[in-house]
């Protein structure tokens, strides 16, 4: 973390609005990736990001170390996303009902459905790592930092995530080839 970034976080903690708006510009996509990884719904993810930002601004004084500010931001987003999931629990899962209607052809939409359900079957952490990778094209190190993982843990996580998805999608993949 370079000094200007650090200064930005420090200023934010001390209530500098401009600094925080700068952080919104640079970090909201990361937050979105995390939220989407958990929720798999764009609207909800956007709401979560918005909520998280507001909440972060209101409780910014809780962060003592400016270094930890981005990680803290991600934590808020994750918790918010979980809250969201808990709220929508009663609603039946959308993808499965739609998925059964058109199964004859393996066209692009059907592939999408299968992919989504494969994603949905992954653990949250794996999903978040995947979205960060595909949305933001972050390298392993950055993803580990963002998700608060230990150094080198991501290699196994992404490997397992891809393997599990591959197993789920194998018939479809085979048909595509």
């Amino acid at each position, binding site marked *: 973390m370079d000094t200007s970034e650090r200064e930005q976080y420090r200023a934010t903690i001390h209530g500098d609005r401009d600094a925080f708006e700068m952080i919104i510009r640079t970090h909201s*996509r990361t937050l979105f990736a995390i939220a989407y990884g958990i929720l798999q719904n764009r609207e909800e993810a956007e709401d979560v990001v*918005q909520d998280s930002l507001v909440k972060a601004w209101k409780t910014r004084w809780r962060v003592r170390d400016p270094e930890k500010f981005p990680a803290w931001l991600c934590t808020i987003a994750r918790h918010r996303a979980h809250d969201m999931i808990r709220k929508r629990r009663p609603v039946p899962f959308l993808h499965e009902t739609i998925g059964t209607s058109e199964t004859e052809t393996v066209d692009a939409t059907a592939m*999408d459905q299968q*992919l989504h359900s494969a994603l949905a079957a992954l653990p949250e952490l794996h999903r978040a790592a995947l979205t960060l990778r595909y949305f933001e094209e972050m390298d392993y190190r950055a993803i580990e930092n963002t998700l608060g993982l230990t150094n080198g843990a991501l290699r196994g996580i992404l490997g397992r995530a*891809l393997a599990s998805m591959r197993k789920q999608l194998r018939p479809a993949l085979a048909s595509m080839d």
Partner: protein
Amino acid sequence: MATIHDEIDNWLAADLYGELSENERSVLHAHLVDCVTCRKTHQETKTMNKILEETLAQEKPDPAFEQRMLAGFRNRIPQKSGLVKSLVDLMRLRSVQITAVAAILLALVQMGRMITGERATMPRSREGDANEELFRQQESQAAASGLGRAGSLDKSDEVAAGRSKDLALNAPPSSLPASRPDFHQLARMPSTPVAPAKVAQPEASAAGAFATSPDNLAQPEVAEQKPAETPAPASANRKLIRNATAELEIVSFDDAMQKITAFANEEHGYVATTNSQKQANGKLRGQVIVKILPENLDPFLQKLRGLGELKNQTLGTEDVTKAYFDTDARLKNAHVMEQRLIDMLNTKTGKVSDLLQVEKELGRVREEIEKMQGELKYWDSQVQFATVTISLAEKDMEEPAAFLLKERAQLSLYAPDVEKIYDQIKALASPKVQITNAQLNRDYSGRVSATMSMLIAPEESDAVIGRVKSFGRVENFQMQTQRIAQGGSGISENAKTKRDKVELNITVSRDEQEQALQQTSLRIRTSSVDEKAKELRALAEKQGGRVRSSTFNRDPDGRELANVWLRVPMKNYASLMQSLNSLGKVENASVQRQDHTGGQIDEANAPADVSIQVYSQGNIISHESGMFATLRRTLGQSAGAIMWSLRMIGVAVAFLAPWVIALTALIWITRRVIRAKR
């Protein structure tokens, strides 16, 4: 170690995401060439990656996403208004925070002081300011009473005048404080003479003081040359009451009186009252009140100086113009009122009761008129003549007329029979020896003492005191001589010295009560305490001593202890001490001697106290010694010490707790407030 084949998924993912090093990639590709399964997996993974990329690309947020987030944030958290924002910004500064904390602490301290009633120390004004203030005061004083002081020989006046001069020269004329009406008034008065000063300094100072007033720049010289010639045009309409007091020390009162009368006549005044008293030493002191025309007041005062030494002089002016003309106007109104009431009476209409009312009112108005007329007359008389009060005192006022030699003697006696001596002293009474007080006291324990006071004619005193001294043992004798000046103070060469009656105070006490000259305490260890104690008594009797008290006891451990207090005359002390050695082993002898500085004591007969403790060693170890007793005591003491320290900790906590709570609460509230503002 896990092979690539086992972890193919991880390797493939890393390869896909560009996380493999050059070396690792070549190893992976080598394995893919060899292994069919892994090659298939690789193929599948690549396809899936493509699908994933394609699918998730649709889910990516659009380019306006950040803007939306920003707008939403701004919407939900509106910008603060100017004042609050600047306040909050200000609070963000470290220096401001430190200042705020310091201010709060200071406020707490001040509050504590106020609560505990301690007075906060007022910050003193700078030294320079204070001096300036002082100078200014002195200057105005010098200016106000400059005339009177000009010729004064008073040293301090010189200094003050010198200072005022300095300041007057330095200060620009416009800086003259406006609050000095006295100065202006006096300065403007043409009849004001500047005294022909005897000392150069005050003259200069007076001139300097005058120079401060711009419109009087040229005046000093004029006034100096021709004093008291032109009447005051400005004060013609003014009603000024001038008063002066002077205190003079003169050689002869009568001479001074004559001269004052002459001066008063010269200046067209008169002596109003005089009074004089003769002091015990034949000197006269008195007061003369002279009435004199105001314009002649200053020459008159000038002349007074020639009479003798001027101790003190004041000159005051009271302006009654306003009050005078007020009263005058009211008087005129009252006259008009009176006239109207008279007219009403003359027309004689209306009821009798109304007329009576008018009559009553007329009475009141007339009374008022008379009062006001009286007042005006009084003022007129006061204004017409200035009053000079002169206090005269002849020189050496304080010289004493005579000296009286007063002698006072204090005598303390010790005797075996107080009553006898009491009677003997009483028998001394004669016309020249008067007993003023005689008292015999016997307290509840049977101790007898007597106090007596007598007045003895001076010529008999030595003989009587000698007689009384011979009645008993003199413990203390003090003689005090005092020379009292009569009718004044200080030294006089021709005053007589007279011897007064001698006052003698005697206290007689029994010699039992006398404090011993020497006190000795010693211990004798022996096997048969009782027997030895008896022997001891016998020894004491033989040496002319008396046993004052004795005790004997035996404790449960078999120890015997006898205490004997003896009193022997000093001359027998040494032989008694020697004979004690025959009783047993003498231990711990301590001797304490009290020498009286008075010196007048009869040492051979002076009493010596001896306290002897005869004891035997017990056979049994007491309960209070031994291992268990020591252990018990030690434990008890340590428990006590722990309890004590616990209590102290409790006190400290109780003392600190309110502060800690208050500070914590304060910090908490502050943080809440700041948060709430944001």
